[in-house]
């Protein structure tokens, strides 16, 4: 991707990649295939993708009087992912694209990043590409950094805030790290990943959602990828088996007064800490 060095009032081009994920607490495994039954699962936009959308909107708002910004939303997945893209449109995205093809099914994180990178390059350049920190289903947090590496741009994970720097093409990024907060000056283009809880995402009103529902979302398919690119989508990390894990239906009650409860907790904690 090219760095846009133009100073002045050129609009920022922002992108956001979101994932449509299962939201149910009771997933089912197909015994025949050993895979999760996603088709039957209730799905919605990945929770921290809403935080990423909020951050993209905040950046867009901050430059409203200085050239403005546009936000383009992308999601890779089956038709159901249109619902997440419509949510992005209702929340302020200007355009949305669904990346959908049977040839994309079964992609691992690297394959997913390759598909995203292809279409981000095709629709770019972008100054900042926003993503949620990690998906609530896979919880790997790899796709953002992988996409950045494929685009040859930096990535910053665990981003708390982003604002324009003094010079065009530079951004001030605050990143949460284990020891506290790190303040970075990052040259665009870049990928930032946004964790859950760093801001308070707005939810679309019914009117905004109804308006967004009328916007057509183009579907981009594998036909736009070269044979070599398609060959590289073959998964390198393969799930060989899946089994559902039973959850505690109901906690066992610890009875008695505060003293008795404390005694039982002490005993449980002691045993639990020694257990390896």
């Amino acid at each position, binding site marked *: 991707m090219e760095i846009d060095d133009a100073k002045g009032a050129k609009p920022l081009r922002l992108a956001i990649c979101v994932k449509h994920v299962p939201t149910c607490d009771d997933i089912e495994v197909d015994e025949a295939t050993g895979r999760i039954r996603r088709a039957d699962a209730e799905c919605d936009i990945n929770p921290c993708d809403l935080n990423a959308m909020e951050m993209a909107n905040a950046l867009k708002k901050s430059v409203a009087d200085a050239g403005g910004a546009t936000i383009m939303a992308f999601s890779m997945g089956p038709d159901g992912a249109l619902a997440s893209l419509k949510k992005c449109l209702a929340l302020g995205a200007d355009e949305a694209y669904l990346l959908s093809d049977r040839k994309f099914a079964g992609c691992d994180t690297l394959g997913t990043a390759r598909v995203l990178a292809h279409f981000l390059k095709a629709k770019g350049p972008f100054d900042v590409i926003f993503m949620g920190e990690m998906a609530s289903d896979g919880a790997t947090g790899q796709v953002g950094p992988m996409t950045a590496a494929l685009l040859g741009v930096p990535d910053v994970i665990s981003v708390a805030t982003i604002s324009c720097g003094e010079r065009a093409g530079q951004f001030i990024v605050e990143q949460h790290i284990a020891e506290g907060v790190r*303040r970075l000056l990052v040259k665009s283009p870049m990928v930032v990943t946004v964790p859950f809880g760093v801001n308070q995402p707005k939810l679309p009103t019914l009117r905004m959602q109804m308006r967004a529902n009328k916007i057509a979302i183009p579907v981009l398919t594998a036909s736009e990828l070269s044979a070599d690119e398609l060959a590289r989508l073959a998964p390198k*990390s393969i799930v060989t088996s899946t089994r559902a894990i039973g959850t505690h239906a109901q906690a066992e009650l610890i009875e008695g007064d*505060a003293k008795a409860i404390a005694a039982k907790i002490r005993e449980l904690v002691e045993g639990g800490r020694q257990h390896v």
Partner: protein
Amino acid sequence: MSEIVVFAPITGQGVLPSTAEVVTAARDICGAGDRVIVVAADDDVARYRDALSFEGVDELVLIRTPDITGANTDALSHAIADALEDRDVSFVLAPASDAARSVMARVAVLMDAGMTAAVKTLEVAGDGDIAQLKTSFGDQAMVSCSLTTRPGIVTLLPGNYDAALLSASGAPSVTERVADGLVSAVEVLADDGGAGNSDDEVLPITAADYVVCVGRGAMTGDNFELAKKYAAKAGAALAGSRPMIDNGWLPFAAQVGESGTVIRPRVALILGVSGAIQFTEGIKGEPLTIAVNTDKDAGISHFAKYLAVADMGDVLKELLSDV
């Protein structure tokens, strides 16, 4: 014969402690003739030589990266991939932590290597393949993965392997490299290592075997102070649900939940937390979970193994009376 590489992230506080557990995992999957190599890269990497000299490691590779540190993952990943390029590496293992996540994902791209992240344990299968076992869908499913490439990259969650000890006699052999000419688009303006933490010595919530998690219930009376005092006395880390962070009671680094701060302690005492999925998503690894809540029907009753229906303040006072 091949090499199993352990990537040791260097943070503002030195070598990431869970690296020692990854060394044990590497030794566990070593076949006859295989070698375990620890690789670290930093602007000032030589100073970590002793802290990286684990028992059972065959070689320590120290890559000096002038002006490049952990924040510059765009450049650091090139230094690591270059160092591994000419070696016969079967697996690159690293801690599943923020300090390694971006670097390892970028190394996977540079080496066109398959990657499985957030793995609990590795198992040597009958055919000699190394299976990666991990949970998925918020711990609702256990999956087994296999990597088709060599090297394959795996990040391992803390709390599943014993930590390797440091070698009394140092690493058997040290290879020093300098990665010159690295360019990063990231410049560190300020690295506020202490931001959000009070002047107390705070045990990181990701490293603790025992975590005390507090929620809204701790905002009443002196409940928070009691929880803090109890955690300190019991040698536990103090963590909180999101309202505790939003309202300034605890720093962001102490937030348990979908924020990315996922904990895997052996025991979690959950006090005054309702138990929304955004919180419970942050507790992994099937620890022993004990909740104290005034509402017996709170969501936490479906997550915790044990529940005491009581005022957390009363229970904490009793716990403090004889820690």
